[in-house]
């Protein structure tokens, strides 16, 4: 038994490292004095350990997939790749929180601690192999997120964001749990591997119960990925939270939830025609509504954070389509989208963060005439916006192309047309934004100070993948394609 546990642990090194990191960060934060030098050391420590976590993660990719901890957790390529992206996303957000002035300076390390905590929850969610682990994963993720959202505790918007997040989170978690209990009642198991076999022979009342229960359960995950109609919290939370938190929210919890959604869809709804049809229908409708609502609402926004929040809802709509096709190509497109989206988000928020610090607001107008005030920032921001809109040669186009690919392969022409129209709508508000950056005239054209060469190097480093993956995407595409769901 003990020996078996140690055997499991060899798969679980990344998580252990992250957990150790979180606890040591907590101790270190308490131990060090409030000096800038020692804080810098804490940040370096966190980034180095997270970077080191990538090594065992890549090693896990090479190993045969396995269910560990007595089938509670599964380590397969889908979960491992998701974890790799999440770790990189967390590193980017921590880096941003270090340079950002949006969080009170006496609070900064708390962000790192809690972000790493959310990462632990996300990793658990990504590899959950039964409903209980999944629920624990969602909750670990959520509870720390609530605190993160309210991190600027003296400001009413941040407090509002935190409260909103708690209320929505509590409600949707309850609904999801309600769904899970019905599924357990109908099937007699919470283990995914057993569920996979049991749903195949499901019929009659039990089938009806499972269909309804699965829709309830979807609520829990839909809330995390901010899909329609559970998206209402996200703009307020995005706007109210500090920018590094917003960045973090738009990457890590979303990807974790997507990974769980993929797993559930593949084990649950791929083995029974009635269930599959109900699920695919639900996902298609949700996807169409999500992107339409997100993109249409984004048009009128003047706050950059809100705009990016609504645009991210639009992107989520496209990503859901990667789940809805229920095949390996779908997973590949989704993972690729996730990677690309992460870099675009990091770019956009990194720049917004600095301008927000300089002007104390995240209104549109801070970008006016940016090209005259800081050309590098402006060029990268415009490139990122065009990439978000899906214009070649940027990677956002490739991501969108892959989504079109998988839905048309399934002959879902109707949804393809909806996605096409949405692309045009999204282009409109991205262009409106780009227009302000390039064509706008600022009141004074003084150069923007304080964007150190380190920061410039960081945004260039984030932007390189955005451009590079639009042209030479075959390697990363193959990497995303190696993500498969392990079913025994």
């Amino acid at each position: 038994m003990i020996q078996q546990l140690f055997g499991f642990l060899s798969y679980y090194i990344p998580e252990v490292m992250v957990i150790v990191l979180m606890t040591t960060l907590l101790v270190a934060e308490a131990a060090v004095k409030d000096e800038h030098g020692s804080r810098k050391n804490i940040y370096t420590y966190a980034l180095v350990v997270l970077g080191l976590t990538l090594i065992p993660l890549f090693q896990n990719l090479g190993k045969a997939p396995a269910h560990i901890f007595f089938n509670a957790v599964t380590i397969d390529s889908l979960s491992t790749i998701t974890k790799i992206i999440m770790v990189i996303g967390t590193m980017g957000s921590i880096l941003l929180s270090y340079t950002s002035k949006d969080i009170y300076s006496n609070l900064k390390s708390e962000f790192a601690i809690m972000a790493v905590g959310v990462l632990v929850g996300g990793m658990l969610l990504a590899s959950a192999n039964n409903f209980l682990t999944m629920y624990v994963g969602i909750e670990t993720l959520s509870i720390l997120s609530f605190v993160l959202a309210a991190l600027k505790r003296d400001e009413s918007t941040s407090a509002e964001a935190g409260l909103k997040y708690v209320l929505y989170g509590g409600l949707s978690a309850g609904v999801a749990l309600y769904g899970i209990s019905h599924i357990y009642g109908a099937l007699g198991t919470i283990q995914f591997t057993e569920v996979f076999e049991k749903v195949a022979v499901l019929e009659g009342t039990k089938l009806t119960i499972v269909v309804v229960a699965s829709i309830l359960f979807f609520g829990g995950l839909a809330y995390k990925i901010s899909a329609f109609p559970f998206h209402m919290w996200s703009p307020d939370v995005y706007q109210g939270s500090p920018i590094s938190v917003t960045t973090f929210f738009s990457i890590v919890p979303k990807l974790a939830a997507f990974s769980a959604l993929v797993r559930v869809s593949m084990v649950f709804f791929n083995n029974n025609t009635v269930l599959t049809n109900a699920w695919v229908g639900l996902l298609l409708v949700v996807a169409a509504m999500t992107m339409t609502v997100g993109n249409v609402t984004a048009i009128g926004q003047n706050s950059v954070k809100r705009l990016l929040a609504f645009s991210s809802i639009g992107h989520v709509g496209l990503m859901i389509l990667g789940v809805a096709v229920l095949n390996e190509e779908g997973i590949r497109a989704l993972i690729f989208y996730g990677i690309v989206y992460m870099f675009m988000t990091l770019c956009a928020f990194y720049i917004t963060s600095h301008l927000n610090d300089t002007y104390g607001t995240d209104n549109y107008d801070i970008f006016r005439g940016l090209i005259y005030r800081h050309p590098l920032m402006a060029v990268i921001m415009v490139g990122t916006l065009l990439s978000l809109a899906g214009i070649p040669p940027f990677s956002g186009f490739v991501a969108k192309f892959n989504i079109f690919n998988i839905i048309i392969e399934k002959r879902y022409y109707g949804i393809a047309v909806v996605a096409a129209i949405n692309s045009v709508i999204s282009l409109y508000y991205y262009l409106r934004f780009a227009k302000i950056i390039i064509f706008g005239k600022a009141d004074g054209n003084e150069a923007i100070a304080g964007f150190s060469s380190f920061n410039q190097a960081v945004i260039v480093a984030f932007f390189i993948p955005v451009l590079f993956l639009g042209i030479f995407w075959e390697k990363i595409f193959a990497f995303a394609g190696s993500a498969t769901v392990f079913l025994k």
Partner: protein
Amino acid sequence: MNGILNWILWMPIIGMVAVLLTPKAKENVIRMISLVNTAITLVLSVILYLNFDNSTADMQFVVKIPWIEHFHINYYLGIDGITMLMTFLNALLFFICTLSSWTVDKSVKAYFALLLMLQSTVFGVFFALDFFLFYVYWEVMLIPMFFLIGIWGGENREYAAVKFFLYTFFGSIFMLVGIVALYYATGKGPESFSILALQGGRFVNEVVNIFGYEISFEKIFFWFMFLGFAIKVPVFPFHTWLPHAHVQAPTAVSVILAGVLLKMGTYGFLRIAFPIFPAAAVEYSTLIAVLGLISVLYGAFCAMAQDDVKKLIAYSSVSHMGFVMLGISAMTTQGVNGAVLQMFNHGTSTAMMFLLIGIIYERSHHRWIVRPDGTRGYGGLYTTHPKFTTVFIIGMFASMGLPGLSGFISEALIFLGIYQKFTTITVIAVLGLLLGAAYLLWMFKRMFFGPVNPECEKYSDMNAREIFYMVPLCICVILFGIYPSPLLNVMKASVGQLVELLAKF
């Protein structure tokens, strides 16, 4: 010779990098780099023409390198007769535009860098034989255009730039859906993104199931492609972006827009929409002809009502591109020959008109034929500006289709071709010629004749640089009006193959 397309395609990018590496303050160095660069490209395209084999309709100078092997996407270039003409036109117009942009003094470095980038992407669209590559160039082209219109344009430039970008994107995103649908309809094979392999009516018997109704694959996706190209041409009712973009764009960009970019739309019909969906194209040819006819007449009537001379020429483009659509929809040898010839000739003659308007605008800073308060914007240019008037007359008559100048040959061929198919439409379309003569002559009368406007006396006549870059266009317009064979011979085989294919359906 095999890599020459690579050189032509990437030469402007080399120039762009050189421009970007030059310090901002050295504006004349930047201008010289662009000029030399476009001159090299022009020489290369002449070399290409000299080595071009007229006798075959096959693709020549083919380059094929795998790009994304998973989807069988290739970096696949090649040209045939139709593309050859467009390549030459593109190289020529960009060379001339660099010269005409000498007076641009706002962010010179960015301007020339974007202009060169635009040239490369336009070459890319014409050379690409891989559908994915084609789409990438088609879209990338929007980025430099957006900034060129939006930064260096007129008063209402931002609106025009956004409208241009959105309209084109709206069409092309549907084209993307069509491209992917074609990929799966061919069964994801190694040739699924090859434009050539998709041609020839392979999808005649394919059906699509939409909400339980079986609809012909061709009939649906022909319209997806149609939308993408029709917006670009632009065919009525998708033309509304064009007057804004043209009027607001700086002179050089208007020239490129009218001279080359509009041709990408009709080129798309000839290379993609018609050969890939021949049955649908034949079935809907009457509808396309009617849309072309409406473009001809509507464009001409709108042109007649304009008080802004640039807007007048912009609407005349709608009218002239309508003739191209008429020629294409005829699907006869003369018709398509005429259409391709008209693509070239409209490129040269409209370029002349826009350049001339740019020249006078630089001096007067307005473009009113009749100002909103009712007074004449110009008047008596005929007596005060003899050189300007001479060149203007050549350009205007070429545009009008006067025998002996280039526009006549192509329009005559189009009418010959279309008369066999749509007699009524031909008769009505002839009215378009009449209207064309009317609005151009009326404009000429109001600007060049009449009492001399005292303001106009202050403007200098054309200088040596301006004369220098108008000469090649004048030669093209006159030479190909008298002796069009060099152009017709080049495209004969390619057009013949297309007409032959369409005749089978």
